């Protein structure tokens, strides 16, 4: 959609530069002249919000790494040093910890948006799959980062997650010892986790580059799920329309971010993590951070170790197969009443699993978690394929312009005829 750039720099220096490296032309065609569907709603602002959160996490993370010490004996103390002694250390650390929460919140809204409006369907399958890869990298990075403060919950989390690999038949235990650099999580583990926690965000940056590239080839989906047919009628320029909208949405998001940082900075942190890691005792109630709770509930719901681990990874991997599980030609749930109903059931299931993941496992709750786990996979494996062929969809508009500008569209259609 972007096509060859028509950008001509105004200054002589700009023209000299552009004829040697067309960097400004790339920026211009991608973020200024780039046509965006005119019916986008605020759900489409989360790409910009996520880009901002990624940059914020990298900037605050680089600063924290200047003061943090990745050593089993000193890590916990160095976090307190950051909180008490380093100038604005408390601020930067709270920006980083709460930033992770808002990063995941924005990511989940972005993903549910994609599922609701069918953004994963042709021609955006690769775009979607790259997104699933980014999500997986985010979860890995967040997990590695959570280990670094070396609190008791950091230690328990590191133990549980690395032990997932011990479920692999025959070589599982050898792999965990290799991963730990010892017979249990310890100093070598902490050091390598720090190294990888610093590395992965830059790999995410690369994957985001591919994500945006694929987006700009296929073009954005939109709330009506019909493709752009006439760029004149169906789209508006990225700048100023989408830019201003993104900036406004980001401003609102920053208010929430600031509220978290300044008013409830420890709300998402586990009190147990204020105790230093103790390899000889596990906290009474081990839970991951909120953004991983649904997967934790799925892991616990299954009474067999290997199957539980497989279900955990399958619950994320299944997202990559959405383009082939949902075969309905209609993209947007706006025109799919039955799909829309089941979408909201799915949202409730995810939230329910999250709540169950935060609770101590009793027999009753485990039973509910099993039902919801079946529901989670059922949405993808039964509801989606079934609705693809049986659902009676509402008529979709002929074009984006027809959807949002009914009167004008009629007049235009009459004029064209």
């Amino acid at each position, binding site marked *: 959609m972007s096509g060859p750039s028509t950008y001509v720099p105004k200054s002589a220096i700009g023209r000299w530069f552009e004829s040697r490296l067309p960097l400004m032309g790339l920026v211009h065609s991608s973020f200024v002249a780039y046509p965006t569907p005119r019916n986008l709603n605020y759900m489409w602002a989360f790409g910009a919000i996520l880009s901002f959160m990624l940059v914020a996490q990298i900037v605050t993370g680089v600063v924290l790494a200047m003061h943090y010490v990745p050593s089993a004996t000193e890590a916990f103390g160095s976090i307190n040093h950051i909180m008490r002694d380093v100038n604005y250390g408390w601020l930067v650390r709270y920006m980083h910890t709460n930033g992770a929460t808002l990063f995941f919140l924005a990511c989940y809204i972005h993903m549910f948006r994609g599922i609701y409006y069918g953004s994963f369907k042709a021609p955006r399958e690769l775009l979607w799959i790259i997104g699933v890869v980014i999500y997986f990298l985010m979860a890995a990075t967040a997990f590695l980062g959570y280990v670094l403060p070396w609190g008791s919950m950091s230690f328990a989390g590191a133990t549980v997650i690395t032990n997932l690999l011990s479920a692999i038949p025959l070589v599982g235990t050898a792999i965990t010892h290799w991963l730990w650099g010892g017979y249990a999580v310890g100093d070598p583990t902490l050091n390598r986790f720090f190294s990888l926690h610093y590395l992965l965000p830059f790999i995410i940056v690369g994957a985001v580059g591919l994500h945006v590239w694929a987006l700009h080839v296929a073009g954005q989906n939109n709330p009506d799920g019909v493709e752009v047919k006439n760029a004149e009628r169906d789209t508006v320029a990225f700048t100023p329309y989408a830019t201003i909208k993104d900036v406004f949405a980001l401003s609102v998001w920053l208010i929430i971010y600031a509220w978290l940082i300044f008013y409830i900075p420890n709300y998402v942190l586990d009190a147990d993590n204020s105790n230093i890691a103790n390899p000889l005792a*596990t*906290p009474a109630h*081990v839970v991951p951070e909120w953004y991983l709770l649904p997967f934790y509930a799925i892991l616990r719901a*299954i009474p067999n170790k290997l199957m539980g681990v497989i279900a955990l990874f399958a619950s994320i991997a299944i997202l990559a197969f959405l383009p082939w599980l949902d075969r309905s030609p209609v993209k947007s749930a706006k025109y799919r009443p039955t799909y829309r109903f089941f979408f909201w059931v799915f949202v409730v299931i995810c939230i329910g699993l999250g709540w169950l993941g935060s609770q101590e496992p009793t027999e009753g709750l485990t039973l509910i978690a099993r039902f919801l786990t079946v529901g989670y996979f059922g949405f993808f494996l039964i509801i989606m394929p079934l609705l693809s062929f049986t659902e009676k969809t509402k008529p979709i508009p002929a074009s984006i312009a027809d959807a949002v500008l009914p009167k004008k569209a009629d007049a235009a259609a009459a004029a064209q005829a």
Partner: protein
Amino acid sequence: MASAATIEAPSRRDFLFLTAGAVGAVGVAAVAWPLVDQMSPDASTLALASTEVDIGAIPEGQIVTVKWRSGPVFIRHRTKKEIEDGENVPLGELRDPQTDQSRVKKPEWLIVAGVCTHLGCVPLGHEGKYEGWLCPCHGSIYDTSGRIRQGPAPLNLAVPEYAFLTDTRVKIG
């Protein structure tokens, strides 16, 4: 030769290409292995192979946790009832069938790794339905012989290598 038209005889160039490729592959593997193996437990970790514990001060009914190879080991001074509970279980009821006798050297002393065989958390002693151990992470329940009875863990708590040096001294590892 009729076959010459369909199958070309290997030339010197093919030979050089294959041998150079093979040497290159060996070179890549030789560089990759140190980069992978550097993560394995190092010499200083392997050196901490055994630990000695004085068990004379542990009263009946108590569990003491000691550190061996950077992880916990439980030393449980079992009561008569706990020993009987462990011994009187039909093997058919067990997920990982082992007799109590095969897991101890002296019935009153149970020595097991304090690592849940599910995902590695440290179970809590005297808890759960069988008053053996309960894992706080995912609810695995072990009996007074450290055998898995309920929950997601697949195996019994591991019995490390150990030896009684005297009646009150144990060497683990």
